[in-house]
C-alpha cells in the first residue's frame, strides 16, 4: 500500500520537516494571537502572573502529552492515561502521608506507571489486541480499582516536603514548569538522537520495512508504552503536588485533553511523524483557551467543543496536506 502511495508522490514537494516546523510555528502563532486578542478585551490576561499560572496549572497535561505523542507516533493510542494519573497521584499521596521517605514517594508512581503501561504495551504488541480495546478496558479497571481501594477518601495534611509545585528555582521558576520544559527537551532530543527513538518513527511509519531493517516493532511498542508510563508518572506527581488535597478519584476527561494536545501538537494520525515540542505547545494552547474563555465571559462548558473542533481541524488539515503532495489523491 505505502509503496503505491510512495510511487504516486510528485518529486520534490513539501518535506515533512517543513511540515513539523509549520505545525509548531502555527501553534506558536495561535498562542500569541489568542493572547493578543484576549489582551485587547482584558489587558490583565497578558499579566505575567496570569500567563505563568496558565502554564503552571497545566504543566502536568503537557508532560502527559509527551508520552501520548510517542504512543501515537508508534501507531497506537492510549485512553487509560487519565485514570492512571489519578491512581499514581493517589499512590504517591498516600505514601507521603504514611511518612515514607520523600524519594520513594516521588519514585514509586514512576515505577508503577512504567509497569502498568508496559503490561498494556505487551498485550498490544504480542497478543495483537488493538490498543483501543486494551486501554479502554484498563481505563475502567483503574477507575474502579481506585475507588474500591481508597473509597475515595481524600488525602489531606500532606507534608510540606511533598509539594514539588511550591519549590521555585531562583525564586521565580516554579518546579512544574521546569520539569515540563526539561521533559520536553529531553524527550525531543531522545527521539532525535537515540536509535530506539528513531525506531518509534520507523515502527509507526512502516512496520514491515522496520522489521526488514532489524527493528522489532513489538519491542518498540512495549518500550514506547513504558516511556509513556514514565511520563504519566511524572505528570501524576505534578498533578498531585499542585494542591494540598488529593481527591483520589480519576480526573474527568483528562485523557481527552491529553490526546487533543498530542494530536494538535502535530502528531500525524497516519502514524510515523510527530513532535513532542508541538504537543507541549498544544497543551499550553488548550490551557490558554480554557482561561481565555473565563476572561471573555464564555462558560467553560464550551471547552470540550473547542477541543473536539481543534482535533478535527488539525487532523483534516494534516490529511489534506499529505494528500496534496500526491497526484490524484
Amino acid at each position, binding site marked *: 500500500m505505502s509503496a503505491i502511495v*510512495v510511487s504516486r*508522490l510528485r518529486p520534490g514537494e513539501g518535506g*515533512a520537516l517543513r511540515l513539523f516546523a509549520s505545525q509548531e510555528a502555527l501553534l506558536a502563532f495561535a498562542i500569541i494571537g489568542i493572547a493578543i486578542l484576549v489582551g485587547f478585551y482584558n489587558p490583565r490576561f497578558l499579566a505575567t502572573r496570569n500567563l505563568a499560572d496558565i502554564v503552571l496549572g497545566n504543566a502536568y497535561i503537557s508532560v502527559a502529552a509527551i508520552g501520548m505523542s510517542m504512543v501515537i507516533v508508534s501507531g497506537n493510542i492510549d485512553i487509560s492515561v487519565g485514570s492512571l494519573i489519578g491512581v499514581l497521584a493517589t499512590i504517591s499521596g498516600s505514601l507521603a502521608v504514611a511518612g515514607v521517605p520523600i524519594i520513594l514517594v516521588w519514585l514509586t508512581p514512576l515505577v508503577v506507571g512504567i509497569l502498568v503501561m508496559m503490561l498494556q504495551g505487551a498485550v498490544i504488541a504480542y497478543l495483537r489486541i488493538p490498543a483501543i480495546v486494551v486501554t479502554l478496558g484498563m481505563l475502567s479497571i483503574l477507575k474502579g480499582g481506585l475507588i474500591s481501594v481508597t473509597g475515595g477518601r481524600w488525602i489531606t495534611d500532606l507534608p510540606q516536603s511533598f509539594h514539588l509545585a511550591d519549590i521555585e528555582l531562583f525564586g521565580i521558576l516554579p518546579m512544574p514548569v521546569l520539569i515540563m520544559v526539561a521533559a520536553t527537551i529531553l524527550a525531543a532530543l531522545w527521539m532525535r538522537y537515540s536509535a530506539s527513538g*528513531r525506531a518509534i518513527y520507523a515502527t509507526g511509519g512502516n512496520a514491515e520495512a522496520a522489521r526488514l531493517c532489524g527493528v522489532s516493532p513489538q519491542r518498540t511498542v512495549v518500550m514506547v508504552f513504558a516511556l509513556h508510563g514514565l511520563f504519566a508518572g511524572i505528570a501524576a506527581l505534578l498533578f498531585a503536588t499542585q494542591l494540598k488535597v488529593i481527591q483520589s478519584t480519576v480526573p474527568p476527561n483528562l485523557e481527552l485533553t491529553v490526546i487533543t494536545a498530542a494530536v494538535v501538537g502535530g502528531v500525524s494520525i497516519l502514524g510515523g511523524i510527530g513532535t513532542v515540542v508541538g504537543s507541549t505547545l498544544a497543551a499550553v494552547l488548550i490551557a490558554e483557551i480554557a482561561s481565555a474563555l473565563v476572561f471573555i465571559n464564555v462558560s467553560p462548558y464550551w471547552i470540550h467543543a473547542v477541543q473536539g473542533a481543534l482535533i478535527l481541524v488539525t487532523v483534516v488539515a494534516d490529511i489534506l496536506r499529505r494528500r496534496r503532495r500526491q497526484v490524484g489523491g
Partner: protein
Amino acid sequence: MSAARNAPIREGGPAAPLLAVAGIEKSFPGVRALSGVSFEVAPGEVHALLGENGAGKSTLIKIISGVYQPDAGTIHVDGRPLRLDSPDDARRAGIATIYQELLLFRDLTVAENVFMGHAPRARGGRLDWKAMAAKTEALLATLEIADLAPSRVVGSLSVGNRQRVEILRALSQDARLLIMDEPTAALTEYDVTRLFDIVRRLKSRGVGIIYISHRMDEIFQLADRVTVLRDGAQVGTRRVVETSSAELVQMMVGRQIESLFPKVAAAVGAPVLEVRDLVRRPMTRSISLTVRAGEILGLAGLVGSGRSELAQTIFGVTPAESGRILVSGESVQIRSPGRARALGIAYVPEDRATQGLVRPMNVRENFSLASLARVARFGFIDPAAETRLAETGVTRFRVRTGSLDQVVGRLSGGNQQKIVLGKWLANRPKLLILDEPTRGIDVGAKAEIHRLMSELAAQGLAILMISSELPEVLGMSDRVLVMREGRLVAEFSRAAATAEAVGAAMMGSQGADAGRAA
C-alpha cells in the same frame, strides 16, 4: 533444453563465484514455481534474469534474499554453502535486495533511511548524526550523486532518488551482491541512465549484481550474462555478447504459442467501448481506443506502463480527469465501479488476493459478490438463488472446490481466478476487462481460461485483455495495442503481431517505430 546449455559458464579465472545457486526447486500449493534452476554470479558481474511474469524470477530472488526457503537445491556464497532462513541471514552474507515496492520510511530523512537499523553511534550510544550525514555524503560521493542531501525527507523525493536511497542503504551495509527487481519499471528515461551509471560503478567495484528486467535494450547495455526462465524452469544461460535480442525473446516465449489455446475467429460487431483522449495523471495520458463486440483487444506493455491504471480509470476506480467514454455508442460518465458494472462493464483485476476476492468469504458469497442485485429481491438475498448462481458458476468454470462453503483463500490460484471470472460473468457484462488473466496459475487452468475467453468472444462479448505474457497476447488477441509510459505507442493487426515486433514496441527499442508504422 540440453544439459550442455545448462552447464554453468565460468566467468573469469578459477576464483570462486560470488554466488552459486544449483538445482533450486520451489512449489506453492497448486503451482510449481521453480524447478532445477542453477546459475552463478561472479564478482563485478551483472547477471540478468529474463522471463515473463510468472516465470519464477521473483520467487528465485526471494529465495536468494532469504524470504523463501527452497524445497531443494543449494546456495553457495564465496564457495561456502549457506542456509538463508531470514532476510537478516542474507544481509549478513552481504546480499541486499531492492524490491519494486521500495521499503522506505517516508517521514524520515535520507541519512536515517540509509542507516536504519545499523546507525553509527557516538559515546553513550546516542546516534551520531554528524557521522551519519558524513557517511551518507561519502556514499553519495562514491556514486557521484549530487542532487541528494542526506537531510532531505524521503517522502519529498522523486522515485528515482528514492531508489538511489535504497541502493545507498545496500552499500552502507557493504553488500557484495545486489539484487535489483525491475529497477527501471517506474523510472523516467533520465533516471534510467543515472541508474545505469551507478550500476556500472558498482560493477567496477567488484559488486555482483542480479538484474531483473523485461527491457531487452537494458540487458544488452548492462549485463554480462543472462539467464532466461520460463514457467519456473531454466531455459538457459547466455553470455550477452554471444546472443541476440531475437534469440532471447525466442527463449522467453519459446514454443508456448503453439501450446496455447488459439482464439477462434468470431464475427466482430459494433463498438462496445470507445475511449477518447482519456486522461488520468500520472499514468493515463490521452488514451483513445475502441473495443468491438466479439473482439479480443490485447493490451501489451511492460509492468508499470500504465495498462492497469487505464483499466481502472475505465472501470471508475480512479475516475478520469478528462476525455470521453462511450459504451455502445452512448457517452457516459463512470465515477464508480458500481456505475461501470451497471453499464455492463466487468473488470477482472490483476491482483486476485487484494482486489479480486474476499478470501475469508466462501465460494458462494464470492460468486454473488458482483451480482448481488440478481440474487436479491427488495435487497433481501434469496439463498436458493444465490446457491444456484454459485453452482452454475462452479460447474461452468470447472472450479475444483469441496463445497460452496469452502473459504476461497484456501483454493489454488487457478480456481480462485475462475471464481473471479465467474463472479463477473454472472453479471452478463457487455465488456470484459481482463488484467493479467492467467498470472501465476498453472498451465492447465491457463488453457481453460483461454478456451473460455474465445468462447465468450464468440458469443459476442467484447474483451479488453491486459497481459505481460507475449505468447498470451499474440495467441489470444484479434488486435494488439502496446502501451509505454502511459501512452499507446503501437497497434498491430493479429497478422502483423509477431513476438519480435510487439516485444520491441513494449521495450521501446528500435522496433518501436516499425510498430507505430504498422
